[in-house]
């Protein structure tokens, strides 16, 4: 699937629910695959008693990875040229996240997007921009 410049309009949006009721096991899977074993993400006694958080929380990069899945589903495989986010709030087990891309401009064979991922309370957990090649 690829996007065609001629079919894109400024303000177009694409949205996906990227995770529903985030499981601790998925956070463990991300730790194992990425190699980031910071115990704040997977180790309840450490996260609560040592680090002082209410429970474990997702890696920012898991949120970015989930957000990136929405993007690649939208723009197609291998089409991204830039992708960046700021992590604006933490993501905890049980969260349901929705990611949206909004078309900001289309020029020179590239689409520029703003990207936002929010949780079930409408709190933005990641926000940023992306750029991709279009046909």
């Amino acid at each position, binding site marked *: 699937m690829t996007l065609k410049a001629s079919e894109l309009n400024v303000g177009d949006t694409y949205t996906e629910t990227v995770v529903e009721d985030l499981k601790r096991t998925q956070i463990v899977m991300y730790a194992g695959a990425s190699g980031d074993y910071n115990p704040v993400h997977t180790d309840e006694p450490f996260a609560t008693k040592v*680090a002082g958080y209410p429970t474990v929380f997702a890696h920012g990069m898991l949120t970015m990875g989930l957000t990136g899945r929405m993007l690649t589903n939208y723009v197609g495989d291998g089409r991204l*040229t830039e992708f960046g986010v700021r992590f604006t709030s933490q993501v905890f087990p049980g969260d349901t996240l929705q990611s949206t891309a909004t078309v900001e401009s289309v020029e020179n064979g590239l689409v520029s997007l703003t990207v936002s991922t929010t949780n079930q309370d409408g709190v933005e957990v990641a926000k940023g921009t992306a750029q991709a090649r279009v046909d």
Partner: protein
Amino acid sequence: MAVDKFSIEASHIMMFARSIGDGNQIYYDKDYAANAEPGAIIAPPTFVQASAQFDPTYGLRPGIDGIGWMGSGSNPTSAIRREAPKSEESGSGEDERKKRQGGGGGGLHAEQRYVYHRHPKVGDVLTASSRPGETWERVGRRSGKLVFRESVTEYRDQNGELVVTAISVGVSTERPVDQK
């Protein structure tokens, strides 16, 4: 972070894609990928983060060298360190301890940006080298004084060509982020 040989491997990509809930065939089926636009299994956009697996001194992985780990066993623990044998010529204890922290009230990931010159594909062997970027401070409502540190990592392929530029911003907080 410095990584000499970050081999882009199919099973690693498959596991990484699963961990972000991505069942796209481009990440695990080489026959499908051969006929798709990329022409090979490629890595998901945030995959280069997993180069940590190939960094021999990565601090957020329990060591296999007798150096302690900050995570819990029979106790919650913290950034503890068993006394390493005196013969070890590794860095000073203090440096090693700092390297193995990064959790606690301490370091969080504030921002991540990637520029894709192309997308890594199975068979690539990348190198990664990092340099510090800018540093700045501000006072946050929910976590006290914040110190931001930027790090720029260049991933190059077996021909020395730039594949991905990654800009990471870490933040040290004065106290854990208030959830209110």
